[in-house]
């Protein structure tokens, strides 16, 4: 069932995105909205490389991870100077600016998107293979983040989120930690991008806009920010819910808006009924 496969794949992709975003915004307290751009960099790098060189998919995806990590360095450095709401908006400028670049240069396909990504694992087992790969990748990312955040490094990161000054005065290098969190989180987003590009074989700049920032953020907050399970649950709910609503037999002319109303109403309901997220108890640890 390709449908089931693609749904599971999307869940996996968004679990990676939400978990890695949670690492940055939830544990690290670094208010950025630019996460989709690293997803995009991973997707575009691996897609373009795959289309142009025919290198093995693994190599192209890893190159995507590397590019996403390298780009994250720029954002990590900006946190030296700016934080809080200002960081939020600087990251927005970073995201939209880079997207505009992708949009305007020719070799990415521009707004028309990139559709020449090679087909891998062609054949009836394709969906299943991708499900296995993506699930494994998601598990690896979640495990790595869980491991990190429950070890000494994670403790220092949470300390930094709670009080940067006190943390630094205890001998922790803030910028060092931020660079590493960004590298890990954005690298994971790049990995998600690579898998996404190879599976769907089509990417375009509009898929990585602010709307997606909002979606990943909603997954994290709805699930429970700063928790291990929260982003996973959030991604699951936000991917499955619209699909489930698709199974309701609504009048044709109302399909979109009615689904939208049901979906947004449920999200609002969750926000009010579970203020600390579906998982976890309090939003006290949240950024801001």
């Amino acid at each position, binding site marked *: 069932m390709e449908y089931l496969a693609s749904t599971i794949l999307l869940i996996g992709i968004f679990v990676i995105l939400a978990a890695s975003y949670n690492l940055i915004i939830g544990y690290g307290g670094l208010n950025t909205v630019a996460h989709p751009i690293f997803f995009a960099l991973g997707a575009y790098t691996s897609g373009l490389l795959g289309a142009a060189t025919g290198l093995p998919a693994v190599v192209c995806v890893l190159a995507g991870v590397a590019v996403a990590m390298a780009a994250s360095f720029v954002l990590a450095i900006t946190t030296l100077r700016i934080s809080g709401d200002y960081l939020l908006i*600087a990251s927005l*400028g970073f995201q939209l600016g880079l997207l505009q670049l992708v949009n*305007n240069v020719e070799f990415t396909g521009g707004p028309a998107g990139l559709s020449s990504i090679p087909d891998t694992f062609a054949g009836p087992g394709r969906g299943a293979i991708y499900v296995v790969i993506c699930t494994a990748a998601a598990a690896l990312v979640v495990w790595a983040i869980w491991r990190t955040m429950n070890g000494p490094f994670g403790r220092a990161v949470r300390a930094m989120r709670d009080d940067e000054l006190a943390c630094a005065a205890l001998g922790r290098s803030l910028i060092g930690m931020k660079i590493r969190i960004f590298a890990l989180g954005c690298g994971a987003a790049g990995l998600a991008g690579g898998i996404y590009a190879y599976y769907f074989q089509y990417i375009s700049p509009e898929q990585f806009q602010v709307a997606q920032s909002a979606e990943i*953020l909603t997954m994290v907050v709805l699930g429970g920010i700063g928790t291990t399970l929260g982003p996973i649950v959030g991604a699951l709910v936000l991917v499955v819910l619209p699909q489930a609503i698709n199974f309701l037999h609504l009048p044709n002319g109302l399909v979109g808006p009615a689904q939208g109303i049901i979906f947004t109403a449920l999200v609002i309901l969750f926000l009010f009924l579970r203020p600390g997220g579906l998982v976890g108890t309090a939003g006290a640890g949240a950024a801001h």
Partner: protein
Amino acid sequence: MIEPAILLQILWTGIAMSSYFVLLTVAFALTLKVEKLWNFAQAGLMGVAFFAMFYAMNALALPTWAGIAIGLGATIAAAVALEVWAIGVLRARNSGGLTFFIFTLVFSQFAAYALTILFGTEPETIYPSVMSPVRILGGVAVSDWDLLAVATTLALMAALWAFLRFTRDGQFMIAVSDNAKLAEIYGISAKRAYVISGVIAAIFLTAGIFLYGTRAGVTPDVPLVLVLTAVIGALLGGIGRIFAAGVAAVSLGLLQSFSILFIPSKWQALLLYGVLFGALILFPRGLPAWRIWRLRRRLGPATPPAAPEPLTEAGE
């Protein structure tokens, strides 16, 4: 190729066209300042305002003043309801900033879907025609709409300035925005200040979307696009500086209009985001003049803590 008349024309039309952008930016900046709230729900309120006016003036064939009155009434009611039943509840729970962010955003999406069901998705304008009579003044084309837009914006800005400067409620709002808890200790009702700022924002939003909707087609999804642009203006102006946000909104519009003479137009948006990113890196707390002034205010022992902030801003 660049004649003075062309520059003047770009300047004038740029100012006129950024009028609604200024109003929407100021509305966003006001709630950001007073309520410390990234109120994306303003997109939903804009939708309510526009379709209330559109319905009153087209389906009910009411005159313009009645349409605007109905639009204002509906928007203010919606703003107050939102404040009392949703945002107030979240605030009482000490919800994190991100929860507000998401709630207001999702609310606006909800409103867009609801308006889609009620009014469809065709781009509608308040009047059937978007044209307005033009006169040529000193080689510059000036339309009636331009004049109306600039006059409305100036009048509302002046009124807001006077309100914040001279009325008790206005000064209470400033006090609450400085420190809500401290203001409460002095017997100022933060709740009242929040509601009033919500009402003022609603008035600005209605005026803004009226100007937009007499000029271009509005669908239920347009307000969300508009509010995102307003956010950029509010931030470039510097969080907490309402009038500077308005100036930033105009400047952004003019920057884009003028830069087209020098760089290919498709790189305009990149320029905008580049400016946004670069300006924040260079001046992490807003532009330098304000920064020095702020620092002096924070450290200066002689400055009274509750100096009316907008007064200084208006002077800049």
